[in-house]
């Protein structure tokens, strides 16, 4: 193992994450004149934003759409947990951001007269989803990444794993209050095998969500919620952890997403007998195949579609496969040309990963964990808030890791890419300004270094220790969540899940990291990620158990009604790792 070396890097703003939110933040901070350290555990263009298929929502007045309708659709889906102020800000800024991307060269799909085209999306009353074929995330990410190469103010630290927020003091034992001001982050350079301290007056967390915790998930292996657990360990609350969106159409086994755009283009869902089963579960009346209608049948809200799957499964209408029960997505009537042109990725994924040609065959699909609405509590400028609602000096969060009150209890598809852009821009500008305004000098280098070593030590010490290989633990976490924290939940199952996860936490404490290499130790990095996933799994189960109502993505069989007053769950951690969940009223902050 390497020596005790610690590399020190300095910047005005350090951004953790190189997905849509992190890259957008980097551009904005650099535009405001800040020196940016852009740190990501993968090369930015590998970030999971790349997998987004469908598109990004933004009102185009020319089509007769209005901000009010986008606002109303989002609030409806949020089921009482969205904040009107936050929704309004994002909705209003969305078109500007999408046009900004266009100016950066985003290859948006076009109408015949050359304007960016929009398509309908589930839960949206009006077509407003801008798209670039069905590879919107790929294009968005590469466009932003290439734009960041232009700025000399943006310094990238690729394949550096960030481990902790650097705060001046440890979080006060047992309290919910946040620790001292944020002074940077600490992490590890995988290629050089070296610990690193990034010192900066402001930090933006843009680390993405945690839906990889579930076994059947549309998310990549890197989507492990690292930023959330860093915030949690720094004494900050995480909001609405139990709110996970289940996508109705993942491929069985792999969970690979078949985008909703396939249904937006006219695809239909069939049960094992070939019937449009959605009509029997409250989503009818039946639409003509190939003529989708917003809000009905295949374009109903995602949670309604996932729930219909659950009911159809219970009613014996699904087909059994080695990877669990499935229904079928029928795209045959669209024809090979539409598939090639509008849904090339769906065509490719179905052929390669399900072995079917969608022009001629049905695609087997089943629900998969997809998007985590909960996250680090932040306002609409990306400023992180502590448990008392006060701003945490120097700390920002943007993108899927943040909970700003946009998605509430359920996200509308195509609202999250714009959130990442709008909040990334706001956080980047805000952080640059906060750094420029900083009045107090940073703590002495000796103090920061000592604190950094203290924070790093337990993580580095994981190498070469323990007995049980972590892969089995990771798998079991996924199975527990798939079983008890997916479409419908109930007390007995959640209690079983909590017990199982507590047992897994004990096993994880003794997990074996056999590889002792300082350089490129992926055995160690995966163990670090598993610590994050398991913590969030425990938090999500605990919050789900505490939320004795049904709302949005959280459906309790034993509490089928929504409570009269909507409340957010807030989960905090004591220094010994014990999690506490409480509830707070929905305010506008």
């Amino acid at each position, binding site marked *: 193992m390497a020596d005790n070396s610690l590399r020190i890097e300095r910047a005005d703003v350090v951004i953790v994450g190189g997905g849509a939110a992190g890259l957008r933040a980097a*551009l904005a901070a*650099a*535009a405001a004149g800040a020196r940016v350290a852009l740190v990501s555990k*993968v*090369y930015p263009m*590998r*970030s999971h934003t*790349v*997998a987004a298929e469908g598109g990004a929502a933004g*009102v185009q*007045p020319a089509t007769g759409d209005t901000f*009010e309708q986008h606002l109303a659709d989002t609030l409806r889906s949020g089921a009482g947990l969205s904040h009107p102020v936050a929704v*309004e*800000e994002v909705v*209003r800024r969305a*078109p*500007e*951001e*999408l*046009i*900004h991307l*266009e*100016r*950066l*060269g985003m*290859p948006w*799909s*076009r*109408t*015949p007269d*050359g*304007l960016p085209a929009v398509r309908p999306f589930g839960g949206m009353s009006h077509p407003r989803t801008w798209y670039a074929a069905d*590879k919107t995330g*790929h294009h968005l990410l*590469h466009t932003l990444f290439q*734009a960041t*190469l*232009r700025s000399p103010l943006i310094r990238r630290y690729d394949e550096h794993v960030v481990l902790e927020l650097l705060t001046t003091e440890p979080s006060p034992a047992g309290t919910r209050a946040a620790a001292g001001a944020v002074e940077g982050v600490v992490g590890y350079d995988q290629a050089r095998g070296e610990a690193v301290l990034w010192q900066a007056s402001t930090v933006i967390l843009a680390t993405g969500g945690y839906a990889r915790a579930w076994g059947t998930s549309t998310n*990549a*292996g890197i989507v492990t919620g690292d930023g959330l657990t860093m915030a949690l360990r720094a004494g900050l609350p995480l909001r609405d952890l139990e709110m996970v969106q289940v996508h109705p159409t993942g491929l069985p*086994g792999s969970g*690979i997403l078949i985008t909703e755009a396939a249904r937006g283009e006219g695809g239909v869902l069939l049960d094992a007998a070939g019937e449009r089963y959605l009509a029997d579960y409250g989503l009818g009346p039946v639409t003509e195949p190939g003529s989708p209608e917003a809000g009905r049948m295949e374009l109903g809200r995602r949670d309604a579609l996932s729930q219909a799957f659950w009911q159809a499964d219970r009613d014996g209408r699904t087909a059994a496969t080695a990877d669990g029960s499935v229904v079928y997505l029928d795209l045959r009537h669209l024809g090979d040309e539409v598939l090639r042109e509008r849904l090339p990725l769906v065509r490719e*994924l179905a052929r*390669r*990963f399900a072995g079917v040609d969608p022009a001629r065959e049905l695609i087997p699909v089943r629900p998969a964990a997809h998007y985590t609405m909960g996250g680090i509590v932040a*306002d609409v*400028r990306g*400023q992180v808030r502590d448990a008392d609602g006060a701003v945490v000096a120097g700390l920002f969060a943007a993108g899927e890791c943040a909970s700003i009150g946009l998605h509430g209890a359920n996200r509308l598809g195509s609202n999250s890419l714009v959130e990442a852009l709008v909040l990334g*821009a706001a956080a980047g*500008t805000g952080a640059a*300004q906060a750094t420029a305004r900083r009045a107090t000098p940073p703590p002495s280098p000796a103090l920061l270094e000592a604190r950094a070593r203290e924070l790093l030590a337990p993580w580095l010490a994981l190498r070469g220790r323990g007995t049980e*290989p972590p*892969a089995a633990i990771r798998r079991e976490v996924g199975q527990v969540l798939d079983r008890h924290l997916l479409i419908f939940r109930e007390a007995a199952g959640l209690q079983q899940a909590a017990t199982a996860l507590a047992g897994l936490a004990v096993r994880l404490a003794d997990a074996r*990291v*056999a*590889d002792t*290499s300082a*350089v*490129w130790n992926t*055995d160690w990095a995966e163990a670090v990620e598993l610590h994050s996933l398991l913590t969030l799994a425990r938090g999500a189960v605990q919050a789900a158990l505490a939320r004795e109502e049904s709302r949005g993505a959280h459906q309790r069989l034993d509490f089928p009604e929504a409570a009269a007053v909507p409340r957010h769950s807030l989960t905090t951690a004591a220094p010994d790792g014990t999690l506490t969940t409480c509830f707070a009223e929905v305010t506008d902050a």
Partner: protein
Amino acid sequence: MPEPTIEVTVTRQEPGGPPREETFEVPYGERSSVLDLLDAIKEREDPSLTYRWSCRSGVCGSCGVSVNGSPRLACETGAAGYRASGIRLAPLAGVAVERDLVTSPADFVSKLRSVLPWLIDDAGAGAGAGEVAAGSSAPAPLGSMEPGPPASDSLASGTLASGQAAPTTQSPAELSAFADFTACVNCLLCYAACPVVKEMPEFVGPAAIAIARRWDLDSRDHGAQQRAPFLLETEFAIWPCIQDGSCTIACPKGVDPARALRDYQREAMG
């Protein structure tokens, strides 16, 4: 019935150490990918085996490796087809190895940067000009810790905020002129396949040139003249290409870098 297994030989290498080969018998199924086999080895045989992966669906470009001598994405390469031959895995050729199957994309990113891979508009600042101005990057009023005032005026009227830029128009035909070149996932399989890169590591290479072409062909871009001195007049940009075509054959995303190189060379020669 015992699970069928397949013989997998991996070329491994510690940082700074010599390459060595290790062979494993790995269980597989009809749908197993080469990436699944790597996972199985890491989980059951040797946790120190090092390789990159993330999306498992061929979109992130992380998992490029050499499979029996051909550059492939491990996650979308089926294992069963190799049951008779066995599988030999090695790091992608032509790139520095960091550990085992992990090679460094750093050199590619600096080559990419050298072609100015961003939209250069009429105002046309070249490299290092920072970002294109966006109305959106200035948030609501500063100083206050409260969220900015709601934009009720624009919301009520249902129109875009005044002064907001409109999108540039681009016809579907103009889009399709460069769309194929936008599919690149930066997996670098084309570099591993290229015979020129092997002889001349400085060659800017297939993907970076394809991306340069993507920008030059974009009707919204006016940067061709700024890119030209580097592309057309330096030694290692387009001229080393011998039109072997291996890059295009290797590309898992249907990009045709050979065409980009050929078209640049032809245009330059008039």
